């Protein structure tokens, strides 16, 4: 753990050449700690990184951002809880989101769901929607559905694209509803993004062998008069389904 402390201290110097050396050292330490069977070492390393990012006033924002991102490579549930506490920190929330995105545990999912619901900042919430799009589950789905009603279009569209990754036919009407909300008109590029998302949803449904549902969505897309590329893709999918 001395090597880890030394790397953290180097990060804290704020000098680029020292930071480079620290990152290189961290790479070796994390590689060792994440070897299958090295759970005890992994837990120690992760705990020390967590402590540095939470109580690390002396490290500064740049160093703590780097440490937070590294937690994405080594963290589990305990570290996801640490990262969750950083979501309210305007300077550290983005590296925290990057890290949570990489941690595949339930606590990380819960942290992202909470961020989707409560975090301030449309661009940040859009990033959270993107992260949730990589995950499955009831909580994820609910957060994404809620995201389609966000007061910011950037978040709504990110939520729609994330829903398209869910391979759940119930997502389609939720995605389409964004277009039908008269209180917040969708511009041409946004409409195109939604249609592209629906095509992706069709692909995911076919992969999950939900062909009947996929067929209905294709027919709905074609009826909506999409751009030529989406019309061609929807027709090709219909032909594929038969």
């Amino acid at each position, binding site marked *: 753990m001395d090597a880890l402390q030394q790397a953290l201290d180097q990060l804290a110097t704020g000098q680029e050449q020292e930071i480079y050396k620290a990152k290189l050292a961290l790479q070796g330490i994390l590689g060792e700690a994440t070897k*299958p069977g090295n759970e005890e070492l992994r837990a120690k390393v992760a705990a020390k990184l967590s402590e540095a990012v939470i109580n690390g006033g002396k490290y500064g924002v740049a160093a703590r951002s780097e440490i937070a991102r590294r937690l994405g490579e080594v963290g589990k549930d305990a570290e996801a809880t640490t990262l969750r506490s950083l979501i309210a920190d305007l300077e550290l929330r983005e590296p925290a989101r*990057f890290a949570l995105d990489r941690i595949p545990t339930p606590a990380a999912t819960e942290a992202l769901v909470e961020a989707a619901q409560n975090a301030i900042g449309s661009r940040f919430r859009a990033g959270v929607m993107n992260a949730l799009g990589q995950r499955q589950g009831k909580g994820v789905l609910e957060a994404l559905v809620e995201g389609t009603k966000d007061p910011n279009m950037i978040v709504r569209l990110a939520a729609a694209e994330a829903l398209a990754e869910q391979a759940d036919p119930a997502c389609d009407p939720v995605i389409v509803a964004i277009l039908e909300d008269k209180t917040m008109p969708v511009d041409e590029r946004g409409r195109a993004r939604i249609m592209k998302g629906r095509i992706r949803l069709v692909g995911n449904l076919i992969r999950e062998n939900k062909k009947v549902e996929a067929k209905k969505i294709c027919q709905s897309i074609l009826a909506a008069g999409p*751009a030529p590329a989406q019309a061609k893709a929807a027709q090709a999918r219909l032909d594929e389904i038969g």
Partner: protein
Amino acid sequence: MSEPSGTSRRSFLKRSAAGLAVAPTIIPATAFASADRPAPSDRVVIGCIGTGDLGRRHHLASMLLPNKRVEVAAVCDVDQTRRDQAAIDVYNKTQKKVGIYEDYRDLCDRTDIDAVLIATPDHWHALTSRYAMEAGKDVYCEKPLTLTIDEGKKLVATARTYGTVFQTGSQQRSDPRFRKACELVRNGYIGELKTVDTHIGGGTVGEWKPVATPPPELNWDFYVGPAPYKDYCPNRVHYEFRWVSDFSGGKMTDWGAHHNDIAQWGIGADGSGPVKVQAQGKFSDTGPFDTVLDFDITYTYGNGVVLTCHAQGENGVKFTGTNGWIFVSRGKIEASNREILKTEFKTSDTRLYKSNHHHNNWLDCIQTRERPICDVEIGHRSCTICHLGNIALKAGRPLEWDPVKEDFVNDEFASRLVRKPMRAPWQV
């Protein structure tokens, strides 16, 4: 004006021309083919995304502008000087003004453009390619195709959904020497293939330079795009991006996407890959560049063939079998026995996809709708080899890879490195 549903610009032009042929209308001469210039309906209208050194000098100036089958209609770069210079190049060659864009989405949204040629920094390849495909464009994307394995999987899926003709810029596939080497290997003329050694050169240490205000012509935030934000520094931009791990995979993906691609071709592993990877390497002790300097990466395939990718050694690919070896590079092809190179292939031999011009192969396929020689999946799988090497270097341990699931076996933490989160709002 929007196009009729499902109608491409070229098919629309063909139909319109047929209609006009019986109408009393004056048709411009440029609408018809001449001996040295195809009719507009047979020309491919292209937009160039990324007009830096490679995009402008190689693709635009050497490959597209002299090609009579091509009409360049737009250029795009986040550096105003570079995009304007590219537009000037087009004007000087064709006396035509082109659309000039900072944002690739504006270029891709044009309905009169058939295809795009992408030569951005690596961290933009997947985003621009996917957007273009979903806008109905055919794509030529420079190698290395992606920054992560996950990006490649998504590009393959998108290309299949949209029926995109997608050429990856690993142009050695269109070099007769490399094809001949692979055909000799694939048909057993060096016996049973045992090992492949690729020599791709090492990385660069670089020189520390202070962060600075970005030059006014460069939209630095857009340049960084999906990568974690970092301040502008002259050694993080343009050619040097390839040594910065947030933007590129270093020499491993740069030249690895050439020679490991040939290794995959010779092994017969297109659409698949190795099952094990083990890496030894050295990074700079001092920085600033953080991609690997020196390395030997060993990949084991399911059939027992071992590929080793080296930084050191003469640039090229060496196939070694039970009865001999073949070495091939851009300048030469050699064999343990010269007679091997004089082989007349038998009709029963496996012959590989033949292309002698990478760009023309892409243009041919745009017409025929067939897959080009370095289709997106081939590019993705070859790039995966390079990414596996970088991940194994980072992990510092042997890794098992499942080329069907495209994930690591029993290594949760290595699996996390298959994709990288992106800075919002970007997402592939």
